[in-house]
């Protein structure tokens, strides 16, 4: 028996837009609303390079990832066109205008998926700044 957690009203999500849902553990879940007021939930992580799908442009029943413009189907989380890969979809229920997510899915699905890293150390793998000893050329 699944437990449905209320998240927000459908109207709290912009039309052709999305909201991010922070979980106790694991990456965010993105909830989307299309022009027909249908609502969808996916892991907020593109199967390509982990871009936050919640930040993409929503059209029809798909979203374009903001990083490299992959098109991801909102219903199944899978890439369209020539690209291949899927992100985790989440069950979702709308009851009297209120969006609900499944508590068990939120607590268990895609908890250990890694998110992309950026910043110092992200390209080399070394974390943090490195320092260099500089010797002035004129010291005896």
């Amino acid at each position, binding site marked *: 028996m699944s437990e449905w957690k209320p998240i927000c009203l459908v109207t709290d999500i912009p039309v052709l837009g999305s909201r991010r849902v922070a979980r106790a553990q694991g990456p965010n879940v993105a909830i989307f609303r299309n022009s027909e007021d249908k609502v969808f939930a996916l892991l907020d992580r593109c199967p390509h390079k982990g871009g936050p799908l919640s930040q*993409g442009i929503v*059209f029809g029943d798909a979203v374009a990832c903001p990083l490299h413009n992959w098109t991801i189907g909102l219903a199944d989380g899978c890439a369209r066109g020539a690209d291949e890969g899927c992100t985790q979809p989440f069950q979702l229920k709308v009851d009297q205008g209120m969006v609900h997510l499944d508590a068990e899915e939120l607590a268990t699905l895609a908890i250990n998926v890694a998110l992309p890293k950026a910043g110092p150390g992200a390209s080399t793998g070394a974390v943090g700044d490195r320092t260099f000893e500089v010797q002035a050329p004129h010291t005896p």
Partner: protein
Amino acid sequence: MKKMKLVMVGNGMAGVRTLEELLKIAPDLYDITVFGAEPHPNYNRILLSPVLAGEQTLDEIVLNPMSWYEDHGIKLHLGKKVVDVNRSKRIVISEDGTEEAYDRLLIATGSNPFIPPLPGKDLDGVIAYRDIQDTNTMIDAAAKYKHAVVVGGGLLGLEAANGLMLRGMQVSVVHIAPWLMERQLDDVAGKLLQRSLESRGLKFLMNAQTQALIGDQDEGKAGRVMAVQFKDGTEVPADLVVMAAGIRPNTALAEKIGLLCARGIVVNDTLQTVTDPRIYSVGECAAHRGIAYGLVAPLFEQGKVCATHLAEFGIGRYIGSQTSTKLKVTGIDLFSAGDFMGGEGCEEIVMSDPYGGVYKKLVIRDDKLIGACMFGDTVDGSWYFKLLREGRKITDIRDKLMFGESNIGDTGHEGHSKAAAMADSDEVCGCNGVTKGTICKAIKEKGLFTLEEVRKHTKASGSCGSCTGLVEQLLMFTAGGDYSAAPKKKAMCGCTDHSHQEVRDAIKEQKLLTIDGVYQAMGWRTPNGCSSCRPAVNYYLISSWPKEAKDDPQSRYINERSHANIRKDGTYSVIPRMWGGETTADELRRIANAVDKYNIPTVKVTGGQRIDLLGVKKEDLVNVWKDIGMPSGHAYAKALRTVKTCVGSEWCRFGTQDSTQMGKDLERAMWRMYAPHKVKFAVSGCPRNCAEAGIKDVGIIGVDSGWEMYVAGNGGIKTEVAHFFVKLKTAEEVLEYTGAFCQLYREEGWYLERTVHYVNRVGLDHVKKKILDDPAGRKALWERLQFSLDGEPDPWFEFDKASVDTRQFTPLSV
């Protein structure tokens, strides 16, 4: 519901591509039956030449194996030639009596080789060059016999001759015209080609009129061919004669069943035959607006359109293609397009180095490139072809035209210009890290034919596009695709057939004010567009109707929706505006405090004389903006970004003008200006030009007597030096002319087109006419820009006015 029946006659590339497109969009609409006269599944006919030359095998050129037909439930009749169609009962009848009923019929019978009515044309050893069987006959003959004669020195004939020679035969090419490939090359290039092929071992008989083929029995009238006889009585020995005198659309069936044929089966823009609405036709057999195409790209274009109509979507029109030619003989580079012969009223630019084996000819009429013919160096073929298609004036680049686009400067692929010389591990596309090997593999394995398809599958040349020429060469070598045929008009995206210009015009003429309004008025195929057209339409609306059309944040890319640059880990970066690149201790202190307070990991000085705070969490953006208290730098937007300045006459001992003040004035007058793409200015105080004004959208350089204005420079993928535009006296004039130029670009530019591309498209003369020759027009442009910018909000502080949806900054929690 019972499925409809679709029968296809012909099992070749254009027809099967149409089925593939149809199955993609309407997989369950039809029970499909295919008749093929050959006993093979669909294969890549273009690659018969490499097979003949021993460079590929027959298995490698199969496009759709038998399993493909089975997987899609297609009933396949191979080796059965269709001989009749009963149009009133809607039944297709084949040679062996097989009958199939249809609701819709697709005729894709391709073309037949043209065999001149010579005595002896039916002798053994006389063949055409069209299909796998012909190819096998040639391969067998090459193993047994010595002398081959190819009749016809066109594209196909030369490929056949080259293949037979590589298989060890002594080959003579007989050609009726004074030079080879006379329909694709001029006399100079044709003769260079001949010389190059002669050095490989081919023999040529030019201006030669064949009279008869002589057999070895019954006084030369029967048996196997042994010689070719000419009108002047001379003979050459021949154990194999390949007739390659051209192809003709195969309309035998269509004519028999009463379909209108005129140089092919006549079809309309939906590929429906004009005679019978249940019958469609695509490929080399179809005549569209009087043209039967013989190249792959236009035929696939036809297939795509035809499929949408078979699927009953009722959308899409085929409006014709322009084509160009390349020869598939490894090691020989030639290219031609358009009217390369020139003639009355035409001018020619010619570069000829007969010893080096390089020849280029460009034909120009009314200041436009109308034809090109090249031998030995064809790297710029696609560029010339583009100029030709766009029909733009070339006055301003005329002096550089001959040296090609590759001469103007490329980055990202180490200056490679010959794909054949590259190793498999060499990188072709520097943006997306795609190697030659990856591209070739994708082309082979996924059966790609067009540049668009390669971009979709590998991303190569999909970002900056500077390696497009290389990718096209790879397509050429690997698939033999005539990649360079292109639709006459480029649609904005898959949602519509309309071009950017048509959408701009409609918005202006019909006073459309909303995105939905545009989609309805122009018949969009999708309910709310896609991530490509919606931002463009949104920009066209707000730039055409300022203060009337409402900006739609959900139709903007994330950076313009959150007013910061998204980074690869989903954090953002913040670049505040520093007028003319000047800052103060107070500003720097506030920035430093924010860096500490919000744990911002990286602080970087940008190339545009500003400071970038990288790695800000989306939740912190609003507070960071507030704490810093500086205006938005719009570093995330298609808008005015930086105005780079040197220190100028205030401090510099060489400075002649106060460039810093000029830069600040320009920036204050034009910040918040959205444009088709980003816009950068620079102002230098003297000709030493320390602000690097020569590579900016607008560059201003101070001289003793005033200011020089430069436009449409670019420091990006292709470094483009700005054009000198005008010399001005006062700072007021600099503002007016700069504003007018920006407004013209805002009103006429296509979305994502930088000023350099816009000016290349419309021509510098057009811009000069609008701004320099028309003072009233210039003032009106400047006024329209000021009207647009008046009262524009700063999106970092005026959320309501800038329609910033602040809900995005706070995540929901569970």
